[in-house]
């Protein structure tokens, strides 16, 4: 390979890097269980994340039952309600969305989309999954330890997180922090792999500006995670010491039950800074892969090149960089200096610019496109709508004077569920419908898929849209029972009951989706290699599902960007990335 002479007018320069030998599994165990193949690891990640995500889904039903019909369900007391809230939030944000987007989609799509045979260090990649699994097991074990899981809220704010009034003070909080530390260690091993694979292991012709936006989204999110998770790691270690060794990093002098506690001199605000230095980038760690994936879904299913590819890339990078300087907008009510509030409000609102660029570009991609209302496309459209909705309420909450009265109300719950709950989940579901044929070789059922979409999309709106109104009324979040108060009209209780009924309905629709996943695995229509007639490399593999090493004998060579849809004069309405210009010219005939 190295002795190919350099040819200035060749379409693609010669290989710079000799091929790396793959690790070949020797037994059933190393092929399917302790596998070093990124595709198997991706499926392991996805299944584990989905399993623990289902637990979080059930917890949300229990919370809604309590909120909708307070006092009816005697098995949900105030402590349990707080535990449900905490575990629901923590699982959904970290153990489901982060793990699924980066560990699941990242592992599956990065090597295929950049034209690599595997991640650069498959063994480390395998370890990453097993440490993640251990973190999930430790997390799940808190449901069974004395005192149950922690009820500190997913933000785990000290001092209350480790005081005796909070449920799960004995074991729950300790195991939660241990699980977070494990998760970060596991993620770091995977994340280093994703970043190096994108930077250093692309195939011939695959420049950074030819990468599909999916890879850009996952890549940027991974870089952010590698820089943001350290803050959570440090905060977790310090809180663990506060709880177990009696140090006072975050604990001020306290009187509990009339007794002076041994703590003193620590700063709870320090924890908030560390937590949100991680927490805000985390929002975009979840959002950027969604942005990337949805760009590809829209372009493929509207048969049109993505509008403003370069701007899309720079918007992803810009959002990633900006998200590191906005964290204190979560802390407007913590009593920080007003000048800081001014600074963080300004940076927060600046993020609206690259985000708006992305939204406009998605819409402009759709404009006069050949829109196929397939199930992935429906979810992509649903994403744009929920994301715009959630993003606009973000402008309210980013302003200090508006945020202060709305802080800790249902308005905040509605905002973040719209923007980083429903919107990324829409993309996850759309992406599963989109890539399921590549993973299994079979299509998901369309009718069930459309049913799933409409119930989920309309249901999500019916759940979260009324919450804005409840929040404006002043109904607080995280309350086990809002009770009777002069400012709460009785219609608010009716609305709460309505939301609960819708939430349970949407929950049932997810069971239909799970049924579809299993049923189609055996009975689905065979998909062929490229059912969506897409351009990106993962659809051009010689086998479907892709075999070990992805590409057969020869690595693909890339001649074009990922968005050659509906090119005038071309024989088909898409040109795969690895189709040489000569082949295209032959098809086009006289075209230059």
């Amino acid at each position: 390979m190295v002795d190919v002479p350099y040819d200035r007018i060749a379409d693609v320069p010669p290989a710079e890097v000799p091929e790396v030998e793959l690790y070949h599994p020797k037994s059933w165990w190393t092929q399917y269980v302790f596998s070093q193949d990124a595709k198997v690891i991706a499926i392991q990640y996805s299944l584990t994340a989905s399993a623990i995500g289902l637990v979080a889904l059930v917890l949300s039903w229990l919370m809604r039952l309590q909120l909708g019909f307070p006092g009816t369900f005697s098995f949900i007391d105030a402590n349990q309600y707080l535990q449900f809230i905490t575990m629901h939030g923590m699982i959904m944000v970290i153990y489901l969305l982060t793990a699924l987007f980066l560990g699941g989609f990242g592992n599956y799509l990065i090597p295929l989309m950049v034209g690599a045979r595997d991640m650069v260090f498959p063994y480390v990649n395998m370890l990453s999954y097993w440490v993640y699994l251990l973190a999930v097991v430790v997390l799940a074990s808190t449901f069974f330890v004395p005192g149950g899981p922690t009820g500190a809220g997913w933000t785990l704010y000290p001092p209350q997180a480790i005081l005796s009034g909070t449920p799960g003070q004995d074991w729950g909080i300790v195991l939660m922090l241990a699980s977070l530390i494990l998760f970060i260690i596991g993620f770091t091993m995977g994340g280093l792999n994703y970043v190096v694979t994108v930077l250093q292991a692309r195939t011939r012709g695959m420049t950074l500006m030819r990468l599909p936006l999916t890879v850009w989204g996952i890549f940027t999110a991974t870089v952010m995670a590698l820089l943001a998770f350290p803050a959570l790691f440090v905060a977790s270690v310090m809180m663990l010491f506060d709880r177990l060794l009696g140090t006072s990093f975050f604990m001020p002098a306290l009187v509990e039950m009339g007794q002076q506690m041994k703590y003193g001199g620590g700063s709870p605000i320090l924890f908030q800074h560390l937590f949100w230095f991680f927490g805000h980038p985390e929002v975009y760690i979840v959002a950027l892969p969604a942005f990337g994936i949805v760009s590809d879904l829209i372009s493929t299913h509207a048969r049109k090149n993505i509008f403003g590819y370069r701007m899309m890339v720079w918007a992803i990078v810009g959002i990633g960089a900006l998200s590191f300087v906005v964290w204190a907008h979560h802390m407007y009510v913590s009593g920080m200096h007003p000048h800081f509030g001014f600074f963080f409000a300004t940076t927060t609102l600046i993020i609206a610019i690259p985000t708006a660029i992305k939204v406009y570009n998605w819409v402009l991609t759709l404009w006069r496109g050949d829109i196929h209302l397939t199930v992935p496309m429906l979810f992509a459209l649903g994403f744009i709508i929920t994301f715009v909705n959630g993003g606009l309420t973000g402008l309210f909450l980013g302003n200090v004077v508006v945020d202060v009265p709305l802080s800790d109300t249902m308005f905040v719950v509605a905002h973040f569920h719209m923007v980083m709950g429903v919107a990324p989940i829409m993309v996850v579901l759309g992406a599963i419908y989109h890539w399921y044929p590549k993973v299994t070789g079979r299509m998901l059922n369309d009718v069930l898929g459309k049913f799933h979409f409409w119930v989920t999309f309309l249901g999500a709106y019916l759940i979260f849209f009324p919450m804005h109104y409840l929040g404006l009324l002043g109904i607080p979040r995280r309350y086990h029972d809002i009770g009777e108060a002069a400012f709460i009209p009785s219609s608010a209780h009716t609305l709460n009951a309505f939301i609960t009924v819708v939430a349970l309905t949407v929950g049932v629709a997810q069971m239909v989706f799970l049924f579809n996943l299993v049923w189609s695995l055996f009975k689905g229509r065979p998909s062929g290699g490229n059912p969506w007639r897409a351009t990106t490399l993962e659809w051009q593999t010689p086998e479907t599902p892709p075999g070990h090493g992805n590409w057969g004998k020869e690595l693909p060579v890339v001649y074009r960007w990922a968005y050659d849809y509906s090119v005038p004069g071309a024989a088909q309405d898409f040109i795969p990335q690895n189709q040489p210009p000569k082949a295209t010219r032959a098809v086009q005939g006289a075209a230059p």
Partner: protein
Amino acid sequence: MAETALTTPGESPARAAGWQGIAADWSSDQRAFKNVSWGKAMMWIFLLSDTFIFSCFLLSYMTARMSTTVPWPNPSEVFALSIGGKHIPLILIAIMTFILISSSGTMAMAVNFGYRRDRVKTAILMLVTAAFGATFVGMQAFEWTKLIMEGVRPWENPWGAAQFGSSFFMITGFHGTHVTIGVIFLIAIARKVWRGDFDVERRGFFTSRKGYYEIVEIMGLYWHFVDLVWVFIFAFFYLW
């Protein structure tokens, strides 16, 4: 993989110097960092991430130290030793710092001999580095023992702010863990060098990949990083 650091493409055109060269590399295909192997790139990115961890530790410590209302113990006094009847402030820390920085020197020499494929000298220098590292950890253990005997605990100490002990044990402990892990890997890689694994391209036990002498340099990156972090801990914790 083995040769990625050393190969250059057949007759590739000369790349422009400076920023233009960097832009050309990043807009080219296959690799953003030319002539940087996967392992080396991964170590650099890991170190960047690790930098954020140590930065968060040090910033938290500085926040605690600045915001506490109780006086902070004087590190010059706390870390003083009486040697031969003389009271010398910070003497132990000075020796530890000297040892760790010396180990960076031997590590750099090991990398040099590694690229010359001088098996014996590389292995010996790596083992010397590991010995320096182990000495450092040993002296740290001595320091911890001394402080614990004097009544310093993570939650309290006889001289002032409780956060002194908390930060001290946490930060030096975390750094000491890094040094210890480094020593273990130094010994493991020195053994491979000594045995000639990289000359006969013997495959790794876990990864079944061939080893190559560049691993010595990647190990060196980690080791120099750990030393550099120590300089910051020394400056911010002991000299402040």
